[in-house]
């Protein structure tokens, strides 16, 4: 069944936005603003049939969904607890200056929602902020229900003959609290992964982010909603390839046995989709890169050709090996950038989200900041155009 995505003008965004427990600021394109402590980025979406835009039950990717074009909700939270066991990483969105090139948000209207820390522990506070953010993103699109769309896209996959069948294997983190990607509201580790889903489900809010690892290597919710890989595969369907479907798999399996089992299971799902080739994407770094490499090997051993998408974490002044893990089968890799490189400094006129970076430096005069602190900058689903090459 085809899914329709209707786009509506950003002019429909309400002027007065209130969110419980948070300050809200609207930033227009081009304003010299830096946003810090960013948890997630979400595109405002609503469904005219009354079903949830970020469903926890039923099936996404059917019927029609409305979106506000060129609007993004940025949720921010400076975790209050002294102990930050899994939240040591600063996450920045620059809406002007050199850092703006590393994220697609500078040309959009940003609704910056800064949650106020309170007595609750990190996990409760995060859950509250995450639910409120998704709910806000939905309510911001309310005005589209009585408006005319500027554009309607239809997503379906009619049968194709004689083209290579290509599937996408998308890795989702589950490394414990504050490191979860959610599938229909369930942490990835409890969502029955690996599992094949309709690619339209991914674009329609089935997967949301609650993962606060290195900012540059995160998959914020908006990168699922606007997923460049899935969209490109739809676009190429019938032209250069036959889009076989999508497999969600878990990153950060916690033991060697589980990693191997999960890798083989993901390859099996790809085989069931009849894939000749797969594109395997990565979420976060280190440990999860091993999951990706094992999945690549398992696919190749099952006779399915694989291309891997990942970011590099390497000292720009060193020529030492650059990957955390690697298997010889991984002979086709897209690099989404070296997160250790520094981004030139600039002076924002306004800082939202919090005035002090996690390392204690003032956010308005932080000096050069490494790529790894820019939200989604080296996204390992291939969302953006950053790459790294040998020079």
């Amino acid at each position: 069944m085809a899914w329709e995505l209707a786009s509506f003008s950003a002019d429909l965004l309400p002027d007065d936005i209130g969110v419980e427990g948070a300050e809200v600021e609207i930033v227009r394109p081009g304003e010299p603003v830096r946003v810090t402590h960013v948890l997630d980025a979400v595109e405002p979406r609503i469904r005219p049939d009354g079903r949830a835009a970020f469903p926890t039950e039923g099936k996404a990717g059917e019927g029609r969904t409305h979106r506000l074009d060129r609007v993004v909700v940025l949720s921010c939270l400076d975790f209050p607890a002294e102990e930050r066991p899994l939240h040591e990483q600063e996450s920045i969105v620059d809406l002007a200056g050199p850092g703006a090139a590393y994220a697609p948000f500078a040309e959009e209207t940003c609704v910056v929602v800064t949650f106020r820390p309170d007595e609750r522990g990190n996990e409760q506070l995060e859950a509250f902020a995450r639910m409120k953010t998704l709910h806000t993103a939905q309510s911001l699109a309310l005005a589209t229900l009585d408006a005319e769309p500027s554009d309607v896209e239809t997503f379906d996959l009619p049968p194709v003959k004689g083209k290579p069948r290509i599937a996408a294997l998308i890795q989702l983190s589950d490394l414990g609290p504050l490191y979860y990607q959610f599938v229909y509201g369930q942490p990835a580790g409890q969502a029955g992964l690996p599992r094949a889903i309709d690619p339209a489900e991914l674009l329609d809010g089935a997967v949301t982010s609650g993962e606060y690892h290195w900012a540059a290597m995160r998959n914020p919710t908006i990168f699922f909603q606007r997923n460049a890989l899935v969209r490109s595969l739809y676009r190429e369907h019938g032209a250069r390839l036959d889009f076989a479907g999508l497999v969600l798999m878990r990153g950060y399996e916690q033991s060697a046995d589980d990693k191997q089992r999960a890798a083989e299971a993901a390859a099996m799902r790809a085989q069931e989709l009849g894939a000749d080739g797969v594109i395997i994407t990565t979420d976060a770094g280190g440990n999860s890169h091993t999951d990706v490499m094992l999945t690549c090997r398992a696919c190749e051993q099952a006779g399915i050709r694989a291309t891997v998408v990942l970011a590099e974490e390497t000292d720009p002044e060193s020529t030492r090996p650059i990957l955390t893990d690697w298997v010889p089968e991984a002979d086709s890799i897209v690099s989404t950038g070296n997160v250790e490189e520094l981004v030139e400094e600039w002076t924002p006129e306004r800082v939202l989200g919090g005035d002090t970076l996690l390392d204690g430096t003032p956010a308005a005069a932080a000096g050069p900041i490494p790529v790894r602190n820019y939200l989604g900058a080296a996204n390992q689903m291939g969302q953006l155009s950053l790459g790294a090459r040998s020079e």
Partner: protein
Amino acid sequence: MKAVHYVNQFFAGLGGEDKAETPPTRLDGAVGPGRGLVAEGVEIVATLACGDDYFAENEEDALAALFGHLDEIAPDVLIAGPAFGSGRYGYACGTLAAAAADRGIPAVAAMHPENPGVDTAGKAYVIPTAVNVAGMRDALPRLARLAAALAEGRELAGPDEEGYLPRGFRRNYFAGRTGAERAIDLLLGKLGGETRTEVGGGLDRVDPPAAVPELSATLVALVTEAGCVPQGNPDRLPSVRAQGWLRYDLNGEQTLAPARYKSVHGGFDVTLANEDPNRLVPLDTARELEREGRIGRLHEAFYTTTGNGTPVVTATRFGREIAGELREAGVGAVLLSGT
């Protein structure tokens, strides 16, 4: 533009193999292939020449003499070669260019891509040439072009655009197309029999050391990258990207009690590990082995860091520093627990 050109005895016109022992010499203006560079617009103020054998056998002295001249001239760029397929000449060009680049003198060498000198060039640039001197005419304009760019301090594009061999430094660029589009191209290419990659593989393989000859008489230390620290993390070991390592005295402790130790590692779910920190640093088992006499003695401190998000070059430094201290302390074997 003020360029200095380095050539060997042969290209300086001093003689062939019989003059390979010639020590560094400074000549005015351009000599030999340098005249070809001048024709391409390079202003060569001096030529430095050295015999290939002399350089190979007296590298330190040769470099000292050559830098004596270079420091005096203070050129905008150093050009070395082309050395084509000549291994000794290529080595001298690469080594000198690398040393110049390290001292802040922009440097470019030219040689055949398989010349062993390529590997010595470090941060200097290398223009690929044919294997023999027949490639001179083709090489000089390309060498001159990059030399001019370096002398002007122009920001260089990638190796393909500028025509130099990749040095191995991984630098970011905006590809103009999303990673997703590039991935589809790579995969369709691979399915069509043409496999390409944007990142080369390969890892630092560490050969397992030889067995410890007499463990029962050996001082053994516990080292971990599992982020194991005393409760409260008094020295604030980061959960990722540690910039150093820590040493904690064991004070005769027999076990790592969960009330006293924990992991701050941000790369795995530490819940289970924190229920029993001995699974991060196996002190309980090591003490048992010590009592049974299977290891000589346990070192009085354990070493810890967070091996998460650490560039290889940084991790290598940690290893060297820790190993240095342990060697000083007479430690003969290490039990290294990773996560």
